[in-house]
C-alpha cells in the first residue's frame, strides 16, 4: 500500500466510527405498479427528484412500453372487477381506506417531502382516507341514482342500468397528489372500471405509497396500475391507445389538453376533464366540493333494456 491510499482508508474508518450510533436508513426504491407487480421501468430510466426537506429520490420514468404493459394488465383485470357485486366493490374500497389509515404516517411524510407543512399534510391524509370511504359507499347506489325504469308509452318493461366503460386512464391532478389522486381514482373504481393512473409529475411519492398499500389490499392485481414519469412523453400514447376506453384528463396540463382530446377522439374514448373555469390546484378537492362524481359518471355507460309485457 502506498502512502496515499493509506490516508484514504483512515478517513473512511473515521467516518464509520463517527456515525456508529446512527442506523443507516433503508431507502425505498420508487417503482411502477403494473398488474400487481413492482417493476422498474423497462427503459431503465429514472428521474432524480429533489425533495423539499433535502435529499432526493430516483423516480421511475415510465416508457410507452410500460404503458402498454399496464393496459394489458388492466384489460385482463377488467371483466373480473366489473363482475364483482356492487357491495363487495364498496367493501374492497373501504379496506383500502383501512390500510391507508395504517400508513398515514408514511403518506404524511411523502407530502412533507413534497413541501407540505406538517399539519397540512396530516389533514390531507385524513381527508384522502375519508374521501375513499365516501366513494366506498357509492357502488351499490349508482344504479338507483343514475339508472331506473322508464315508463314507456307502449307495453314494454324498460330499464336503464349504468355499466362500467372498461379501461380508464387517469392523468391524476398535478397539485393535489394524494387527495386529488384518491378522488379521481376512487370514482373510476367505484363505477366498476379499472385504471391506469399517471401520478403527479412533481409530487409522485404519495402515489408510490398508495401502490404499496394497494398491493396488500383486496383490490385484485391489474385493477389499478400506477405509472410515474413525464406527462409530455406519455400522454400522446396514453390518449391514443386503442384499448383504453376512457381518459380522465383532470390533471392534464393546459398546453397538452387539446392534443390529448384529439387523441382520445381518434377512437371515441370517453373524456372527463376539469370544468372550463377550474384550476389544477391543491385546494380543488378539499371539503364538500371535492365530493364529486364527474370522474365516476364520465365512465359509465347507460344500457337500456326493453322487453314486451304480455302473456
Amino acid at each position, binding site marked *: 500500500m502506498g502512502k496515499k491510499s493509506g490516508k484514504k482508508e483512515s478517513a473512511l474508518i473515521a467516518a464509520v466510527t463517527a456515525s456508529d450510533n446512527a442506523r443507516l436508513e433503508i431507502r425505498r426504491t420508487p417503482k411502477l405498479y403494473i398488474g400487481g407487480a413492482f417493476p422498474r421501468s423497462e427503459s431503465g430510466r429514472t428521474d432524480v427528484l429533489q425533495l423539499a426537506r433535502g435529499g432526493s429520490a430516483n423516480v421511475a420514468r415510465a416508457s410507452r412500453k410500460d404503458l402498454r404493459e399496464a393496459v394489458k394488465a388492466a384489460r385482463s383485470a377488467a371483466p373480473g372487477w366489473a363482475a364483482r357485486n356492487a357491495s363487495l366493490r364498496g367493501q374492497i374500497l373501504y379496506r383500502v381506506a383501512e390500510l391507508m389509515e395504517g400508513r398515514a404516517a408514511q403518506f404524511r411524510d411523502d407530502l412533507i417531502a413534497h413541501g407540505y407543512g406538517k399539519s397540512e399534510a396530516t389533514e390531507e391524509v385524513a381527508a384522502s382516507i375519508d374521501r375513499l370511504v365516501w366513494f366506498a359507499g357509492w357502488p351499490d347506489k349508482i344504479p338507483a341514482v343514475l339508472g331506473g325504469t*322508464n315508463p314507456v308509452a307502449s307495453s314494454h318493461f324498460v330499464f336503464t342500468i349504468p355499466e362500467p366503460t372498461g379501461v380508464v386512464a387517469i392523468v391524476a391532478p398535478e397539485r393535489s397528489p394524494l387527495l386529488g389522486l384518491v378522488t379521481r381514482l376512487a370514482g373510476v373504481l367505484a363505477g366498476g372500471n379499472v385504471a391506469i393512473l399517471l401520478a403527479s409529475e412533481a409530487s409522485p411519492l404519495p402515489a408510490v405509497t398508495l401502490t404499496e398499500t394497494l398491493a396488500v389490499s383486496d383490490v385484485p392485481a391489474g385493477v389499478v396500475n400506477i405509472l410515474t414519469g413525464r406527462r409530455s412523453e406519455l400522454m400522446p400514447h396514453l390518449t391514443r391507445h386503442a384499448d383504453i376506453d376512457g381518459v380522465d384528463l383532470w390533471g392534464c396540463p393546459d398546453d397538452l389538453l*387539446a*392534443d390529448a382530446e*384529439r387523441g382520445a*377522439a381518434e377512437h*371515441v374514448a370517453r373524456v372527463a376533464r376539469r370544468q372550463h373555469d377550474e384550476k389544477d390546484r391543491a385546494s380543488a378537492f378539499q371539503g364538500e366540493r371535492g365530493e364529486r362524481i364527474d370522474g365516476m359518471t364520465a365512465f359509465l355507460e347507460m344500457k*337500456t333494456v*326493453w322487453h314486451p309485457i*304480455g302473456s
Partner: protein
Amino acid sequence: MSSEQPPKRPERAVKRAAPSALTAAAAPAVPHAASALAASSPWAYSPAPESKELALIRPRYGLFIDGQERAPVSGEVVVTYNPATEEPLAEVAKGSAEDADRAITAADRAHRKVWSKIEPRERAKYLYRISRIMQERSREFAVTETLDSGKPIRESRDVDVPLAAAHFWYYAGWADKLQYAVPGRRPESHGVVGQVIPWNFPLLMLAWKIAPALAAGNTVVLKPASTTPLTALLFAEVCQQADLPPGVVNIITGPGEMGMAIATDPRVAKVAFTGSTSVGIKIAQGIAGQGKALTLELGGKAANIVFEDAALDQAVEGVINGIFFNQGEVCCAGSRLLVQESIAEEFIARLKERMTTLRVGDPMDKNTDVGAINSRAQMETIGELVASGVAEGAKLWQPECVLPTRGWFYKPTLFTGVAQSHRIAREEIFGPVLSTITFRTVDEAIEKANNTAYGLSAGIWTEKGSRILQVAAQLKAGVVWANTFNRFDPTAPFGGYKESGYGREGGLQGLSAYLRSS
C-alpha cells in the same frame, strides 16, 4: 312496425325451394324467389297513396334566424329532391360560416336576455305548446317527411311524427323540475347549444336534440341534413306559431363546413351530433381543448341474436323490422343476424319467405313497407358494400320485386355465409341489407355480437328469461331489445357504447347532457 306480434296473415303452405336455388353464386346474376306480391297473388294490394297536397311545400326556404326567415349571406340555394321520384321539391338556403355566426349571435342574445330569465314553468309551457302544434299538424309533417326523405308514410305517420311530439311533451315537464334531475346540485344551462342531425329521421332527431336543450334552458342553433331540410323548416314555422321568443331556436341549412363552424364557435358551449362515426370524430377533434360539452350518437352494426328456443315467427318479424324499418337507414338497425346453427336453415327459409311479402316502392303508399333510399350517394354506398360482400364470398339473395322505374330504390337483401371479417359484417351499410352469421353456444353468440367497433344496439330472441338477462348484461350495446326491436320512447335513454358514441338521448340521462351542475 310491431315486432312482437306474429304476422297477421292466413296460414299457408310454405313453399321452400332447395337452398341452392335460392342463393346466388355471384352477383349480378341473382335468381329471385317467386314473388308473393304478383298481381295474381292474393297478396296483391291496390295502390293506397296519401295525398301530396297535405304538404304545403313552398318553392323556396331561407334560414330561420332570430325568429325570422333570412336569406343566406351568399345568396346561394341548393335543391332538395324527392328520393322516390328524383323530382325537385324545393330550394333551400345554402348557409355558410357567416350565417352560422349570425345564428349563434341570435341564440347567445336570446339565452342571456330571455330564455335564461323567464320562469321555468313558462319555459315548460312553450314546449307543451310546440308539442300540441306538432300533433295538430302531424299529417302535414308526415307527408312532408316522406316526400323529402323517402321513408314510408306509414312510418313517418306512426313513428317519426308522434314520437317527435312526444319528446317535446316529455321534456316540457322537466323544464320546471330541473332541481329534481340533479339532486343536491345546482343545475344550469350550458348556454348556446350547437346541434347537427342526420337525414334518416329528420324531424325525430330534431326533437331529440331541441326538446331537452330548451327544457334545460339552453338556446339552439341546429343544422338539419342537406338532403332532408323540409320538416326542420316546417318546425321553424311551429316555433313562430308557438310565439317562441326569437333566437331561442335557430335552424340553418348548409353544408358540413357550416356544421363545423357552429361546433367550433367559442360561444357554443355544448355540441350534440348524430351521424357517422367519421364525422363525429372530426367534430370531437375540431373542438378539442375548447372546454365544450359534447355528446355523439354515431354508427352501429347491431347484432340481432336468435336462439334456438325463440318464438320463430315473432323472431322473423323482429329481424325484418330490425333491418328493413326505414330501409335499414337506421343507426341502430339489426344489420347482423346471429342465428343459432341448429335452427339456421329453417329460420333463413322463413325469413326469405317473409321477405318476398315486403312491399317495396312508393313511400306515399300506405301499404309500403320499404320506401326509397334517401339519396343517390347512399344508393352508391349500399351498392358498393353489397358488391364487396359478393366479392368476399358471401351468398346474396333478394326477393323478386318490381321496383319503380324512377327514384332510388334498393331490393331487400339477405347475405348468408358471411364471415366476421367481411366488410358487410363490420361496416355500417345503412341500407336494407342483412348479413347472417351462425353460432353454436351462448358464449359464441356474445363474442360475435361484441366483435365490432360499434356498440349502439342489439337484439335477443329467446323464450328463456334468465338467458335474456345474462346475455343483455354481457352485450356491449347501449340499447338491448329482447323479443322486440327498434322501439323508441322519450322516457327511455338511447345511445351507444364504444365507437357508437357517448351520451344518451331520452329520459333523465338525455336531460343531464344539456345541464351543467355546480
